[in-house]
């Protein structure tokens, strides 16, 4: 009786474990977007080069627009703080520049033949964000050494 019970339990556990291991490969992509090779080129290019583009935007100070929160003033490109009007905010503009440039790059990648976009190493998609961290820490040096 015990042997039969143990065998049944082992079989059930093995089946469940197999199902759990296979969870990550549950089903093929069901949405047309996820199955599209063009979206693949767009997504991988956007995410791979996005972090690098952001760092470039920040380094060269290329905000798409500048926001002045005290006066709700919004201007294209860079504008320094104006006397008597409080601080300026550039982060929104850097983010907007990054999203637009990365999207344009993604669109270009969509238009390229698949054998070209396949050459983008997938490692870069997670390596670039990690590599940008030391640069960002360095760019914030005035705060650390104040």
């Amino acid at each position, binding site marked *: 009786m015990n042997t039969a019970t143990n065998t049944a339990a082992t079989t*059930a*556990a093995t089946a*469940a*474990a197999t199902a*759990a*291991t296979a*969870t*990550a*490969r*549950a*089903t*093929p*992509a069901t*949405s047309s*977007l*996820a*199955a599209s090779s063009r*979206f*693949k080129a*767009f*997504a*991988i290019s*956007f*995410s*791979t080069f*996005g*972090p690098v*583009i*952001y760092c470039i935007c*920040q380094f060269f100070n290329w905000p798409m627009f500048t*926001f002045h*929160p*005290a006066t709700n003033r919004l201007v294209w490109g860079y504008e320094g703080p104006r006397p008597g009007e*409080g*601080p300026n*905010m550039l*982060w*929104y503009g*850097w*983010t907007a520049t*990054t*999203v637009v440039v*990365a999207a344009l790059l*993604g669109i270009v990648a969509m238009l390229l033949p698949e054998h070209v976009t396949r050459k983008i190493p*997938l*490692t870069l*998609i*997670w390596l670039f*964000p*990690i590599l*940008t961290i030391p640069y*960002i*820490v360095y760019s*914030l040096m005035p*705060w*650390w050494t*104040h």
Partner: protein
Amino acid sequence: MTNIMSVGTFWTIWLLVHLLFAVGLLGALTHQAMAVALPVRRAAGGIVTRFRAVPAPGYATAVCVLWVLTFVVGSYIYTKYRIFVRIPLEQSGYYKTQGFFDFKEHVATLGLVLLPGYWYFWKNAQNPEFDTARKMVTLVLAAMCWFLFIVGHVLNNTRGFGS
């Protein structure tokens, strides 16, 4: 708006909305990161095993939506933060605290641009070609999310509710 609630209450509600989205995002990403980093080999087990044994692909879209929502609400709050929190922080000499906030804003954008690739990898989880990239992108996003959450929490402690 001031007839319905005070300005302070209005922004506190948005801060709480930001927090709630962030908690949802943190939970979803942590489940997924655990599932991908330490896949379950046995069917049953303790709470840690059960925490890891989630259907990870099902979290991908929710993570993307929550990241964007948290990002948008955080960006909205940031306009007031810049005037009513950052300036007093600087005047009080909390320079490193403010440095970490700037670090947080950069990391939030870096995470945002990773989302299309992350979503694509998870929606094609049946393809072994993406296994390493999917795992690493998920772990990077989870680490970013924890960093953003902790820095936000510390900043709120420094100058948040009632200040």
